Protein backbone atom coordinates (compact mmCIF):
# COMPACT_ATOMS: atom_id res chain seq x y z
CA UNK A 1 0.00 0.00 0.00
CA UNK A 2 2.84 2.30 0.83
CA UNK A 3 4.58 1.83 -2.49
CA UNK A 4 1.55 2.08 -4.71
CA UNK A 5 0.20 5.20 -2.97
CA UNK A 6 3.50 7.00 -3.33
CA UNK A 7 3.94 6.07 -6.97
CA UNK A 8 0.37 6.95 -7.90
CA UNK A 9 0.25 10.19 -5.94
CA UNK A 10 0.25 12.48 -9.02
CA UNK A 11 -2.73 10.61 -10.44
CA UNK A 12 -4.67 10.95 -7.21
CA UNK A 13 -4.01 14.70 -7.34
CA UNK A 14 -5.23 14.73 -10.95
CA UNK A 15 -8.47 13.05 -9.95
CA UNK A 16 -8.93 15.54 -7.11
CA UNK A 17 -8.31 18.49 -9.41
CA UNK A 18 -10.77 17.13 -11.97
CA UNK A 19 -13.44 16.82 -9.30
CA UNK A 20 -12.65 20.31 -8.01
CA UNK A 21 -12.77 21.75 -11.52
CA UNK A 22 -16.14 20.23 -12.33
CA UNK A 23 -17.50 21.31 -8.95
CA UNK A 24 -16.43 24.90 -9.60
CA UNK A 25 -17.99 24.95 -13.06
CA UNK A 26 -21.16 23.29 -11.90
CA UNK A 27 -21.98 25.03 -8.65
CA UNK A 28 -20.50 28.51 -8.49
CA UNK A 29 -22.51 31.60 -9.34
CA UNK A 30 -19.97 34.13 -10.46
CA UNK A 31 -18.97 33.95 -14.13
CA UNK A 32 -15.29 34.57 -13.30
CA UNK A 33 -15.34 31.62 -10.93
CA UNK A 34 -16.75 29.41 -13.70
CA UNK A 35 -13.90 30.52 -15.96
CA UNK A 36 -11.44 29.66 -13.18
CA UNK A 37 -13.07 26.23 -13.03
CA UNK A 38 -12.20 25.66 -16.68
CA UNK A 39 -8.65 26.71 -15.81
CA UNK A 40 -8.48 24.14 -13.03
CA UNK A 41 -9.65 21.43 -15.43
CA UNK A 42 -6.97 22.41 -17.88
CA UNK A 43 -4.32 22.28 -15.16
CA UNK A 44 -5.52 18.82 -14.17
CA UNK A 45 -5.28 17.44 -17.70
CA UNK A 46 -1.82 18.99 -18.23
CA UNK A 47 -0.62 17.45 -15.00
CA UNK A 48 -1.99 14.08 -16.10
CA UNK A 49 0.03 14.14 -19.29
CA UNK A 50 3.23 15.22 -17.55
CA UNK A 51 2.79 12.60 -14.82
CA UNK A 52 2.38 9.93 -17.49
CA UNK A 53 5.72 10.82 -18.94
CA UNK A 54 7.79 9.54 -16.05
CA UNK A 55 10.04 6.68 -17.09
CA UNK A 56 11.93 5.00 -14.27
CA UNK A 57 15.65 5.10 -14.97
CA UNK A 58 15.30 7.37 -17.99
CA UNK A 59 17.45 10.40 -18.75
CA UNK A 60 16.45 13.75 -20.22
CA UNK A 61 17.31 13.91 -23.95
CA UNK A 62 20.00 16.60 -23.62
CA UNK A 63 23.29 15.77 -25.29
CA UNK A 64 25.37 18.57 -23.73
CA UNK A 65 27.45 17.16 -20.86
CA UNK A 66 25.33 14.03 -20.69
CA UNK A 67 26.47 11.42 -18.14
CA UNK A 68 28.03 8.26 -19.53
CA UNK A 69 25.30 5.84 -18.52
CA UNK A 70 22.62 7.87 -20.32
CA UNK A 71 23.54 6.52 -23.75
CA UNK A 72 20.71 4.13 -24.50
CA UNK A 73 18.22 5.41 -22.01
CA UNK A 74 17.12 8.84 -23.17
CA UNK A 75 13.36 9.36 -23.31
CA UNK A 76 11.35 10.92 -26.12
CA UNK A 77 10.19 14.41 -25.08
CA UNK A 78 6.69 13.86 -26.49
CA UNK A 79 4.61 14.33 -23.31
CA UNK A 80 6.31 17.60 -22.53
CA UNK A 81 5.64 18.81 -26.08
CA UNK A 82 1.96 17.87 -25.76
CA UNK A 83 1.71 19.72 -22.46
CA UNK A 84 3.31 22.88 -23.86
CA UNK A 85 0.86 22.90 -26.76
CA UNK A 86 -2.02 22.41 -24.38
CA UNK A 87 -0.86 25.23 -22.09
CA UNK A 88 -0.70 27.65 -25.03
CA UNK A 89 -4.18 26.64 -26.18
CA UNK A 90 -5.39 27.16 -22.61
CA UNK A 91 -3.98 30.69 -22.57
CA UNK A 92 -5.87 31.56 -25.76
CA UNK A 93 -9.12 30.08 -24.43
CA UNK A 94 -8.81 31.93 -21.11
CA UNK A 95 -8.07 35.25 -22.79
CA UNK A 96 -11.11 34.93 -25.06
CA UNK A 97 -13.40 33.85 -22.21
CA UNK A 98 -12.35 36.78 -20.05
CA UNK A 99 -12.85 39.17 -22.97
CA UNK A 100 -16.39 37.87 -23.34
CA UNK A 101 -16.93 38.23 -19.58
CA UNK A 102 -15.86 41.89 -19.71
CA UNK A 103 -18.29 42.56 -22.56
CA UNK A 104 -21.09 40.73 -20.73
CA UNK A 105 -20.53 42.89 -17.66
CA UNK A 106 -20.69 46.01 -19.78
CA UNK A 107 -24.04 45.05 -21.32
CA UNK A 108 -25.79 43.18 -18.53
CA UNK A 109 -24.41 44.98 -15.47
CA UNK A 110 -24.01 41.72 -13.58
CA UNK A 111 -21.83 38.63 -13.64
CA UNK A 112 -24.28 36.35 -11.89
CA UNK A 113 -24.70 33.21 -13.99
CA UNK A 114 -28.34 32.85 -13.06
CA UNK A 115 -29.04 36.32 -14.45
CA UNK A 116 -26.89 36.16 -17.59
CA UNK A 117 -29.47 34.02 -19.31
CA UNK A 118 -31.29 36.07 -21.86
CA UNK A 119 -30.90 33.28 -24.41
CA UNK A 120 -33.03 30.49 -23.08
CA UNK A 121 -36.03 28.35 -23.91
Amino acid sequence: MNGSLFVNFPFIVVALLLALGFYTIGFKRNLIKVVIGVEILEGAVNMFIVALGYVKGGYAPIYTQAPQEAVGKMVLPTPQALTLTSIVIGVAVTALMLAFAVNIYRHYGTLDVTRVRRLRG
Partner: protein
Amino acid sequence: MIEHLPALMVALPLFGAFIAPLFKKHYKGVSIWAIFITGISVVLSLLLTKEVVTNGIIMYVFGADKPTLVLPSGYVVPIRIMFEVDAMGAFMAISATLMSFVGAIYSYSHVKKDTGLEKYYALLMLLEAGILGMVLTGDLFNLFVFLEIAGIAGSALVGFRNYRGEASEAGIKYLMVSSVASLMVLFAVGIFYGQYGNLNLAYIAKNVSFNMVDMIALGLLFASFAMKCGAVPMHYWVPDAYTEVPAGINPPLLVATYASLYALFRVSFTLFANVVIDLARVGWIMSILGVLTMFIGVTMALIQKDVKRLMSYHAISQTGYMLLGVGVGLTVLHDPSKLAEFGRDAMAGGVFHIINHIIYKSLLLMTAGALFYVTGTRNLNEMGGLARKMPITTISFMIGAAAISGLPPFNGFASKFLIYETSYRLNPLLTVFAMVTSVLTLASFVKVFASAFLGPPLEKFENKREVPKPMIVAMLILAALCILFGLFPNVVLDKLVYPAVDALINFAQYHSWGGLA
Protein backbone atom coordinates in the same frame (compact mmCIF):
# COMPACT_ATOMS: atom_id res chain seq x y z
CA MET B 1 1.68 19.03 -56.36
CA ILE B 2 -0.78 16.16 -56.14
CA GLU B 3 1.25 14.32 -53.54
CA HIS B 4 1.35 17.37 -51.26
CA LEU B 5 -2.40 17.97 -51.41
CA PRO B 6 -3.25 17.09 -47.78
CA ALA B 7 -0.69 19.60 -46.48
CA LEU B 8 -1.75 22.25 -49.02
CA MET B 9 -5.36 21.97 -47.96
CA VAL B 10 -4.50 23.03 -44.43
CA ALA B 11 -1.72 25.45 -45.39
CA LEU B 12 -3.79 27.48 -47.86
CA PRO B 13 -6.53 28.73 -45.49
CA LEU B 14 -3.87 29.35 -42.81
CA PHE B 15 -1.92 31.50 -45.26
CA GLY B 16 -5.10 33.35 -46.17
CA ALA B 17 -5.95 33.86 -42.50
CA PHE B 18 -2.59 35.39 -41.70
CA ILE B 19 -2.59 37.73 -44.71
CA ALA B 20 -6.13 38.97 -44.07
CA PRO B 21 -5.40 41.38 -41.17
CA LEU B 22 -2.94 43.24 -43.40
CA PHE B 23 -5.88 44.71 -45.33
CA LYS B 24 -6.42 47.25 -42.56
CA LYS B 25 -9.51 49.14 -43.71
CA HIS B 26 -10.00 47.93 -47.27
CA TYR B 27 -13.02 45.83 -46.48
CA LYS B 28 -13.81 45.16 -50.11
CA GLY B 29 -10.26 43.93 -50.74
CA VAL B 30 -10.30 41.51 -47.84
CA SER B 31 -13.68 40.11 -48.94
CA ILE B 32 -12.32 39.43 -52.42
CA TRP B 33 -9.23 37.83 -50.86
CA ALA B 34 -11.39 35.51 -48.74
CA ILE B 35 -13.55 34.49 -51.71
CA PHE B 36 -10.39 33.83 -53.74
CA ILE B 37 -8.72 31.65 -51.11
CA THR B 38 -11.83 29.62 -50.31
CA GLY B 39 -12.50 29.15 -54.02
CA ILE B 40 -9.04 27.67 -54.55
CA SER B 41 -9.58 25.36 -51.59
CA VAL B 42 -12.80 24.05 -53.21
CA VAL B 43 -10.81 23.11 -56.31
CA LEU B 44 -8.12 21.45 -54.18
CA SER B 45 -10.67 19.40 -52.26
CA LEU B 46 -12.26 18.14 -55.47
CA LEU B 47 -8.80 17.08 -56.71
CA LEU B 48 -8.16 15.34 -53.40
CA THR B 49 -11.43 13.42 -53.60
CA LYS B 50 -10.71 12.28 -57.12
CA GLU B 51 -7.29 11.09 -55.98
CA VAL B 52 -8.65 9.19 -52.98
CA VAL B 53 -11.52 7.54 -54.83
CA THR B 54 -9.26 6.22 -57.58
CA ASN B 55 -6.11 5.36 -55.63
CA GLY B 56 -7.18 4.42 -52.12
CA ILE B 57 -6.01 5.88 -48.84
CA ILE B 58 -3.47 8.69 -49.10
CA MET B 59 -0.75 8.75 -46.43
CA TYR B 60 1.10 12.02 -46.01
CA VAL B 61 4.00 12.26 -43.57
CA PHE B 62 5.22 15.60 -42.27
CA GLY B 63 8.98 15.59 -42.22
CA ALA B 64 9.87 12.33 -43.95
CA ASP B 65 9.49 11.00 -47.44
CA LYS B 66 7.76 7.76 -46.61
CA PRO B 67 5.66 6.68 -43.65
CA THR B 68 7.72 3.58 -42.93
CA LEU B 69 10.86 5.46 -42.00
CA VAL B 70 13.00 3.71 -39.41
CA LEU B 71 15.16 5.69 -36.99
CA PRO B 72 18.91 4.95 -36.89
CA SER B 73 18.52 3.44 -33.45
CA GLY B 74 16.21 0.82 -34.90
CA TYR B 75 13.04 2.36 -33.42
CA VAL B 76 10.36 1.21 -35.77
CA VAL B 77 7.14 2.64 -34.35
CA PRO B 78 5.73 5.60 -36.41
CA ILE B 79 6.76 8.80 -34.70
CA ARG B 80 5.88 11.57 -37.10
CA ILE B 81 2.60 13.41 -37.58
CA MET B 82 0.75 11.77 -40.44
CA PHE B 83 -2.29 12.81 -42.37
CA GLU B 84 -4.30 9.81 -43.45
CA VAL B 85 -7.02 10.70 -45.94
CA ASP B 86 -9.64 8.09 -46.71
CA ALA B 87 -12.91 8.53 -48.57
CA MET B 88 -14.85 9.67 -45.49
CA GLY B 89 -12.30 12.40 -44.75
CA ALA B 90 -12.36 13.56 -48.37
CA PHE B 91 -16.17 13.68 -48.23
CA MET B 92 -16.09 15.96 -45.20
CA ALA B 93 -13.32 18.08 -46.77
CA ILE B 94 -15.51 18.77 -49.81
CA SER B 95 -18.40 19.94 -47.64
CA ALA B 96 -16.07 22.10 -45.49
CA THR B 97 -14.49 23.95 -48.40
CA LEU B 98 -17.75 24.35 -50.30
CA MET B 99 -19.54 25.81 -47.31
CA SER B 100 -16.67 28.19 -46.50
CA PHE B 101 -16.76 29.41 -50.11
CA VAL B 102 -20.53 29.96 -50.01
CA GLY B 103 -20.22 31.68 -46.62
CA ALA B 104 -17.52 34.03 -47.93
CA ILE B 105 -19.67 34.98 -50.94
CA TYR B 106 -22.67 35.62 -48.69
CA SER B 107 -20.62 37.66 -46.23
CA TYR B 108 -19.50 40.02 -48.98
CA SER B 109 -22.68 42.03 -48.48
CA HIS B 110 -24.22 40.68 -45.29
CA VAL B 111 -21.69 42.18 -42.86
CA LYS B 112 -21.03 45.32 -44.89
CA LYS B 113 -22.39 47.56 -42.15
CA ASP B 114 -20.11 46.11 -39.47
CA THR B 115 -16.53 47.16 -38.75
CA GLY B 116 -13.46 45.07 -38.02
CA LEU B 117 -14.06 42.95 -41.10
CA GLU B 118 -10.43 42.02 -41.63
CA LYS B 119 -10.58 40.07 -38.37
CA TYR B 120 -13.87 38.50 -39.45
CA TYR B 121 -12.39 37.06 -42.62
CA ALA B 122 -9.20 36.00 -40.86
CA LEU B 123 -11.30 34.05 -38.35
CA LEU B 124 -13.41 32.55 -41.16
CA MET B 125 -10.34 31.17 -42.85
CA LEU B 126 -8.92 29.96 -39.54
CA LEU B 127 -12.18 28.12 -38.90
CA GLU B 128 -11.92 26.48 -42.31
CA ALA B 129 -8.30 25.48 -41.61
CA GLY B 130 -9.34 23.98 -38.27
CA ILE B 131 -12.12 21.89 -39.81
CA LEU B 132 -9.91 20.67 -42.65
CA GLY B 133 -7.18 19.68 -40.20
CA MET B 134 -9.69 17.77 -38.12
CA VAL B 135 -11.00 15.65 -40.97
CA LEU B 136 -7.73 14.95 -42.74
CA THR B 137 -5.53 13.94 -39.84
CA GLY B 138 -4.46 10.48 -38.77
CA ASP B 139 -3.04 11.47 -35.40
CA LEU B 140 -5.03 11.83 -32.21
CA PHE B 141 -3.25 14.80 -30.69
CA ASN B 142 -3.43 16.64 -34.00
CA LEU B 143 -7.17 16.05 -33.90
CA PHE B 144 -7.29 17.72 -30.47
CA VAL B 145 -5.27 20.74 -31.65
CA PHE B 146 -7.44 21.35 -34.72
CA LEU B 147 -10.58 20.77 -32.65
CA GLU B 148 -9.48 23.57 -30.34
CA ILE B 149 -8.58 25.85 -33.27
CA ALA B 150 -12.02 25.38 -34.76
CA GLY B 151 -13.64 25.93 -31.36
CA ILE B 152 -11.76 29.15 -30.60
CA ALA B 153 -12.25 30.61 -34.09
CA GLY B 154 -15.91 29.60 -34.07
CA SER B 155 -16.64 31.14 -30.71
CA ALA B 156 -14.83 34.36 -31.55
CA LEU B 157 -17.09 34.59 -34.59
CA VAL B 158 -20.19 33.82 -32.51
CA GLY B 159 -19.40 36.85 -30.37
CA PHE B 160 -18.53 39.01 -33.36
CA ARG B 161 -21.37 41.49 -33.05
CA ASN B 162 -20.23 42.76 -29.67
CA TYR B 163 -22.62 45.71 -29.61
CA ARG B 164 -25.18 43.16 -28.45
CA GLY B 165 -24.76 41.61 -25.01
CA GLU B 166 -26.43 38.40 -26.17
CA ALA B 167 -23.65 37.74 -28.67
CA SER B 168 -21.02 37.72 -25.92
CA GLU B 169 -23.23 35.49 -23.82
CA ALA B 170 -23.59 33.02 -26.69
CA GLY B 171 -19.85 33.27 -27.35
CA ILE B 172 -18.84 32.43 -23.79
CA LYS B 173 -21.31 29.56 -23.66
CA TYR B 174 -20.01 28.03 -26.88
CA LEU B 175 -16.39 28.52 -25.80
CA MET B 176 -16.98 26.91 -22.43
CA VAL B 177 -18.71 23.88 -23.91
CA SER B 178 -16.07 23.55 -26.60
CA SER B 179 -13.12 23.81 -24.22
CA VAL B 180 -14.54 21.37 -21.63
CA ALA B 181 -15.22 18.82 -24.37
CA SER B 182 -11.74 19.30 -25.86
CA LEU B 183 -10.08 18.95 -22.45
CA MET B 184 -11.81 15.63 -21.92
CA VAL B 185 -10.68 14.54 -25.39
CA LEU B 186 -7.12 15.43 -24.37
CA PHE B 187 -7.56 13.37 -21.21
CA ALA B 188 -8.58 10.35 -23.28
CA VAL B 189 -5.64 10.94 -25.65
CA GLY B 190 -3.38 11.02 -22.59
CA ILE B 191 -4.81 7.66 -21.49
CA PHE B 192 -3.98 6.19 -24.88
CA TYR B 193 -0.50 7.68 -24.87
CA GLY B 194 0.23 6.30 -21.45
CA GLN B 195 -0.78 2.81 -22.48
CA TYR B 196 0.61 2.48 -25.98
CA GLY B 197 3.37 5.08 -26.19
CA ASN B 198 2.20 6.42 -29.52
CA LEU B 199 -0.39 8.88 -30.82
CA ASN B 200 -0.90 7.57 -34.33
CA LEU B 201 -4.52 6.57 -34.89
CA ALA B 202 -3.68 3.52 -36.99
CA TYR B 203 -1.12 2.24 -34.46
CA ILE B 204 -3.56 2.60 -31.56
CA ALA B 205 -6.33 0.98 -33.61
CA LYS B 206 -4.14 -2.04 -34.15
CA ASN B 207 -3.13 -2.42 -30.52
CA VAL B 208 -6.16 -1.36 -28.52
CA SER B 209 -7.57 -4.02 -26.25
CA PHE B 210 -10.58 -4.56 -24.09
CA ASN B 211 -9.62 -3.39 -20.64
CA MET B 212 -11.24 -0.97 -18.23
CA VAL B 213 -8.99 2.01 -18.93
CA ASP B 214 -9.57 1.87 -22.68
CA MET B 215 -13.31 1.65 -22.19
CA ILE B 216 -13.19 4.72 -19.94
CA ALA B 217 -11.32 6.51 -22.73
CA LEU B 218 -13.94 5.43 -25.26
CA GLY B 219 -16.74 6.62 -23.00
CA LEU B 220 -15.08 10.02 -22.56
CA LEU B 221 -14.42 10.38 -26.30
CA PHE B 222 -17.97 9.35 -27.16
CA ALA B 223 -19.60 11.78 -24.73
CA SER B 224 -17.28 14.67 -25.66
CA PHE B 225 -17.79 14.32 -29.40
CA ALA B 226 -21.52 13.83 -28.90
CA MET B 227 -21.64 17.10 -26.94
CA LYS B 228 -19.69 18.93 -29.62
CA CYS B 229 -22.08 17.80 -32.33
CA GLY B 230 -25.24 18.73 -30.51
CA ALA B 231 -26.80 15.47 -29.42
CA VAL B 232 -29.57 15.74 -26.84
CA PRO B 233 -29.29 16.12 -23.81
CA MET B 234 -26.15 18.17 -24.35
CA HIS B 235 -27.56 20.35 -27.11
CA TYR B 236 -28.28 23.53 -25.18
CA TRP B 237 -25.43 25.50 -26.68
CA VAL B 238 -26.53 24.96 -30.31
CA PRO B 239 -29.48 27.39 -30.48
CA ASP B 240 -27.58 30.09 -28.62
CA ALA B 241 -24.52 29.88 -30.87
CA TYR B 242 -26.35 29.52 -34.18
CA THR B 243 -28.67 32.43 -33.42
CA GLU B 244 -26.06 35.03 -32.60
CA VAL B 245 -23.47 34.20 -35.23
CA PRO B 246 -23.58 36.36 -38.39
CA ALA B 247 -25.45 34.41 -41.06
CA GLY B 248 -22.45 34.12 -43.37
CA ILE B 249 -20.61 32.05 -40.76
CA ASN B 250 -23.48 29.64 -40.22
CA PRO B 251 -22.34 27.30 -43.04
CA PRO B 252 -18.76 26.83 -41.74
CA LEU B 253 -19.96 26.61 -38.11
CA LEU B 254 -22.39 23.89 -39.17
CA VAL B 255 -19.57 21.96 -40.84
CA ALA B 256 -17.48 22.34 -37.67
CA THR B 257 -20.28 20.63 -35.76
CA TYR B 258 -20.40 17.81 -38.29
CA ALA B 259 -16.63 17.46 -38.25
CA SER B 260 -17.09 16.47 -34.60
CA LEU B 261 -19.68 13.95 -35.80
CA TYR B 262 -17.03 12.65 -38.22
CA ALA B 263 -14.61 12.34 -35.28
CA LEU B 264 -17.28 10.38 -33.36
CA PHE B 265 -17.63 7.96 -36.25
CA ARG B 266 -13.86 7.70 -36.64
CA VAL B 267 -13.50 6.77 -32.97
CA SER B 268 -16.37 4.28 -32.97
CA PHE B 269 -15.48 2.52 -36.19
CA THR B 270 -11.75 2.67 -36.73
CA LEU B 271 -10.52 2.74 -33.16
CA PHE B 272 -12.93 0.51 -31.36
CA ALA B 273 -14.86 -1.64 -33.73
CA ASN B 274 -12.66 -4.65 -33.26
CA VAL B 275 -12.43 -4.60 -29.54
CA VAL B 276 -15.73 -3.93 -27.94
CA ILE B 277 -17.12 -7.25 -26.86
CA ASP B 278 -20.65 -6.04 -27.38
CA LEU B 279 -20.50 -3.51 -30.21
CA ALA B 280 -24.27 -3.66 -30.42
CA ARG B 281 -24.31 -1.73 -27.15
CA VAL B 282 -22.46 1.23 -28.63
CA GLY B 283 -24.71 1.06 -31.68
CA TRP B 284 -27.86 1.04 -29.59
CA ILE B 285 -26.60 3.98 -27.50
CA MET B 286 -26.05 5.91 -30.73
CA SER B 287 -29.48 5.01 -32.13
CA ILE B 288 -31.31 5.89 -28.91
CA LEU B 289 -29.41 9.20 -28.72
CA GLY B 290 -30.41 9.79 -32.33
CA VAL B 291 -34.11 9.21 -31.74
CA LEU B 292 -34.14 11.34 -28.58
CA THR B 293 -32.31 14.12 -30.40
CA MET B 294 -34.75 14.05 -33.30
CA PHE B 295 -37.85 14.25 -31.21
CA ILE B 296 -36.83 16.78 -28.59
CA GLY B 297 -35.23 18.99 -31.24
CA VAL B 298 -38.33 19.26 -33.35
CA THR B 299 -40.81 19.70 -30.50
CA MET B 300 -38.74 22.52 -29.07
CA ALA B 301 -38.57 24.09 -32.52
CA LEU B 302 -42.34 24.28 -32.79
CA ILE B 303 -42.70 26.84 -30.01
CA GLN B 304 -39.95 29.30 -30.96
CA LYS B 305 -40.62 32.83 -32.09
CA ASP B 306 -37.13 33.73 -33.22
CA VAL B 307 -36.59 32.51 -36.75
CA LYS B 308 -32.90 31.60 -36.44
CA ARG B 309 -33.45 29.85 -33.12
CA LEU B 310 -36.19 27.76 -34.72
CA MET B 311 -33.86 26.73 -37.50
CA SER B 312 -31.09 25.82 -35.03
CA TYR B 313 -33.42 23.48 -33.18
CA HIS B 314 -34.10 21.85 -36.53
CA ALA B 315 -30.36 21.47 -37.01
CA ILE B 316 -30.28 19.52 -33.75
CA SER B 317 -33.17 17.34 -34.84
CA GLN B 318 -31.62 16.48 -38.21
CA THR B 319 -28.39 15.49 -36.44
CA GLY B 320 -30.55 12.81 -34.86
CA TYR B 321 -31.21 11.34 -38.29
CA MET B 322 -27.50 10.97 -38.94
CA LEU B 323 -26.90 9.41 -35.53
CA LEU B 324 -29.81 7.01 -36.14
CA GLY B 325 -28.61 5.94 -39.57
CA VAL B 326 -25.03 5.31 -38.56
CA GLY B 327 -26.10 3.83 -35.23
CA VAL B 328 -28.17 1.21 -37.04
CA GLY B 329 -25.12 0.37 -39.14
CA LEU B 330 -22.86 0.20 -36.07
CA THR B 331 -25.26 -2.14 -34.29
CA VAL B 332 -25.08 -4.77 -37.03
CA LEU B 333 -21.42 -4.25 -37.91
CA HIS B 334 -20.30 -7.69 -36.75
CA ASP B 335 -23.20 -9.54 -38.31
CA PRO B 336 -22.29 -10.03 -41.98
CA SER B 337 -25.69 -11.02 -43.34
CA LYS B 338 -27.54 -8.15 -41.70
CA LEU B 339 -24.76 -5.77 -42.59
CA ALA B 340 -25.04 -6.56 -46.26
CA GLU B 341 -28.82 -6.51 -46.06
CA PHE B 342 -29.50 -3.19 -44.40
CA GLY B 343 -26.52 -2.02 -42.36
CA ARG B 344 -24.52 -0.63 -45.24
CA ASP B 345 -27.53 1.23 -46.66
CA ALA B 346 -28.40 2.62 -43.23
CA MET B 347 -24.92 4.06 -42.97
CA ALA B 348 -25.18 5.38 -46.52
CA GLY B 349 -28.40 7.12 -45.54
CA GLY B 350 -26.79 8.65 -42.46
CA VAL B 351 -23.66 9.84 -44.27
CA PHE B 352 -25.63 11.15 -47.28
CA HIS B 353 -27.83 13.02 -44.84
CA ILE B 354 -24.76 14.86 -43.54
CA ILE B 355 -24.07 16.60 -46.83
CA ASN B 356 -27.75 17.06 -47.62
CA HIS B 357 -28.37 18.65 -44.26
CA ILE B 358 -25.37 20.93 -44.53
CA ILE B 359 -26.64 22.18 -47.90
CA TYR B 360 -30.27 22.84 -47.02
CA LYS B 361 -29.68 24.05 -43.48
CA SER B 362 -27.10 26.58 -44.73
CA LEU B 363 -29.64 27.69 -47.34
CA LEU B 364 -32.36 28.16 -44.71
CA LEU B 365 -30.09 30.00 -42.29
CA MET B 366 -28.96 32.29 -45.08
CA THR B 367 -32.57 33.11 -45.93
CA ALA B 368 -33.09 33.92 -42.24
CA GLY B 369 -30.05 36.19 -42.47
CA ALA B 370 -31.62 37.83 -45.52
CA LEU B 371 -34.83 38.40 -43.54
CA PHE B 372 -32.77 39.99 -40.76
CA TYR B 373 -30.94 42.17 -43.30
CA VAL B 374 -34.18 43.48 -44.77
CA THR B 375 -36.40 43.85 -41.71
CA GLY B 376 -33.85 44.38 -38.94
CA THR B 377 -35.56 41.90 -36.63
CA ARG B 378 -35.56 38.16 -36.04
CA ASN B 379 -38.89 37.98 -34.28
CA LEU B 380 -41.50 36.17 -36.37
CA ASN B 381 -44.37 38.02 -34.72
CA GLU B 382 -43.27 41.24 -36.36
CA MET B 383 -42.81 40.03 -39.92
CA GLY B 384 -45.37 39.45 -42.61
CA GLY B 385 -46.16 39.63 -46.28
CA LEU B 386 -42.59 39.73 -47.51
CA ALA B 387 -43.08 37.36 -50.43
CA ARG B 388 -43.79 40.05 -52.96
CA LYS B 389 -40.84 42.19 -51.87
CA MET B 390 -38.23 39.40 -51.80
CA PRO B 391 -39.21 36.86 -54.46
CA ILE B 392 -35.88 35.07 -54.82
CA THR B 393 -35.51 34.66 -51.07
CA THR B 394 -39.02 33.20 -50.97
CA ILE B 395 -38.24 30.64 -53.65
CA SER B 396 -34.98 29.65 -51.94
CA PHE B 397 -36.83 29.30 -48.65
CA MET B 398 -39.47 27.10 -50.26
CA ILE B 399 -36.82 24.84 -51.76
CA GLY B 400 -35.00 24.62 -48.42
CA ALA B 401 -38.17 23.93 -46.44
CA ALA B 402 -39.29 21.24 -48.88
CA ALA B 403 -35.84 19.65 -48.73
CA ILE B 404 -35.67 19.57 -44.93
CA SER B 405 -39.12 18.05 -44.60
CA GLY B 406 -38.21 15.26 -46.94
CA LEU B 407 -40.51 16.12 -49.83
CA PRO B 408 -39.64 14.63 -53.20
CA PRO B 409 -37.84 15.38 -55.49
CA PHE B 410 -35.36 17.28 -53.28
CA ASN B 411 -32.29 15.83 -51.65
CA GLY B 412 -33.78 15.41 -48.18
CA PHE B 413 -36.15 12.76 -49.47
CA ALA B 414 -33.43 10.49 -50.85
CA SER B 415 -31.47 10.19 -47.61
CA LYS B 416 -34.55 10.05 -45.37
CA PHE B 417 -35.98 7.27 -47.54
CA LEU B 418 -32.87 5.19 -46.95
CA ILE B 419 -32.98 5.85 -43.20
CA TYR B 420 -36.70 5.00 -42.89
CA GLU B 421 -36.39 1.71 -44.72
CA THR B 422 -33.30 0.45 -42.95
CA SER B 423 -34.17 1.53 -39.42
CA TYR B 424 -37.47 -0.30 -39.81
CA ARG B 425 -35.54 -3.54 -40.18
CA LEU B 426 -33.82 -2.96 -36.84
CA ASN B 427 -36.84 -1.85 -34.85
CA PRO B 428 -40.11 -0.38 -36.21
CA LEU B 429 -40.43 2.07 -33.32
CA LEU B 430 -37.38 3.99 -34.56
CA THR B 431 -39.05 4.57 -37.91
CA VAL B 432 -42.21 5.82 -36.22
CA PHE B 433 -40.21 8.49 -34.41
CA ALA B 434 -38.40 9.43 -37.62
CA MET B 435 -41.61 9.89 -39.56
CA VAL B 436 -43.38 11.88 -36.83
CA THR B 437 -40.32 14.13 -36.71
CA SER B 438 -40.57 14.68 -40.46
CA VAL B 439 -44.21 15.71 -40.16
CA LEU B 440 -43.50 18.13 -37.31
CA THR B 441 -40.57 19.59 -39.28
CA LEU B 442 -42.89 20.37 -42.16
CA ALA B 443 -45.37 21.89 -39.69
CA SER B 444 -42.86 24.29 -38.21
CA PHE B 445 -41.59 25.41 -41.60
CA VAL B 446 -45.13 26.03 -42.76
CA LYS B 447 -45.42 28.23 -39.67
CA VAL B 448 -42.33 30.24 -40.65
CA PHE B 449 -43.46 30.53 -44.26
CA ALA B 450 -46.95 31.65 -43.34
CA SER B 451 -45.90 34.23 -40.82
CA ALA B 452 -42.87 35.71 -42.55
CA PHE B 453 -43.66 35.46 -46.24
CA LEU B 454 -47.40 34.99 -46.75
CA GLY B 455 -50.14 37.29 -45.71
CA PRO B 456 -51.01 40.84 -46.63
CA PRO B 457 -48.11 43.27 -47.09
CA LEU B 458 -47.52 45.36 -43.98
CA GLU B 459 -46.98 49.11 -44.02
CA LYS B 460 -43.66 49.14 -42.24
CA PHE B 461 -42.04 47.09 -44.98
CA GLU B 462 -43.36 49.35 -47.72
CA ASN B 463 -40.06 50.43 -49.20
CA LYS B 464 -37.93 47.34 -48.62
CA ARG B 465 -36.37 45.62 -51.55
CA GLU B 466 -34.63 42.35 -52.36
CA VAL B 467 -31.26 41.64 -50.75
CA PRO B 468 -28.01 42.47 -52.61
CA LYS B 469 -26.67 40.24 -55.35
CA PRO B 470 -23.87 38.35 -53.54
CA MET B 471 -26.36 37.03 -51.00
CA ILE B 472 -28.69 35.96 -53.81
CA VAL B 473 -25.85 34.21 -55.63
CA ALA B 474 -24.89 32.27 -52.51
CA MET B 475 -28.48 31.20 -51.86
CA LEU B 476 -29.02 30.18 -55.47
CA ILE B 477 -25.85 28.06 -55.53
CA LEU B 478 -27.15 26.07 -52.59
CA ALA B 479 -30.69 25.84 -53.97
CA ALA B 480 -29.30 24.50 -57.24
CA LEU B 481 -27.29 21.92 -55.30
CA CYS B 482 -30.45 20.91 -53.41
CA ILE B 483 -32.28 20.28 -56.66
CA LEU B 484 -29.33 18.57 -58.33
CA PHE B 485 -28.65 16.22 -55.46
CA GLY B 486 -32.34 15.44 -55.36
CA LEU B 487 -32.68 14.65 -59.05
CA PHE B 488 -29.55 12.49 -59.29
CA PRO B 489 -29.17 10.89 -55.88
CA ASN B 490 -27.59 7.68 -57.05
CA VAL B 491 -24.75 9.53 -58.81
CA VAL B 492 -23.82 11.22 -55.52
CA LEU B 493 -24.26 7.96 -53.64
CA ASP B 494 -22.03 5.94 -55.93
CA LYS B 495 -19.27 8.47 -56.27
CA LEU B 496 -19.12 10.10 -52.84
CA VAL B 497 -21.13 8.31 -50.19
CA TYR B 498 -20.60 4.60 -50.75
CA PRO B 499 -16.78 4.94 -50.83
CA ALA B 500 -17.01 6.83 -47.53
CA VAL B 501 -19.27 4.17 -46.00
CA ASP B 502 -16.98 1.38 -47.19
CA ALA B 503 -13.99 3.22 -45.71
CA LEU B 504 -15.77 3.21 -42.35
CA ILE B 505 -16.98 -0.41 -42.54
CA ASN B 506 -13.66 -1.91 -43.66
CA PHE B 507 -11.95 -0.47 -40.64
CA ALA B 508 -8.98 -2.79 -41.01
CA GLN B 509 -7.99 -0.90 -44.13
CA TYR B 510 -7.04 2.11 -42.03
CA HIS B 511 -3.98 0.46 -40.55
CA SER B 512 -2.89 -1.55 -43.55
CA TRP B 513 -0.15 0.74 -44.83
CA GLY B 514 2.61 -1.55 -43.73
CA GLY B 515 4.70 0.55 -41.39
CA LEU B 516 3.27 -0.79 -38.16
CA ALA B 517 5.06 -3.31 -36.01
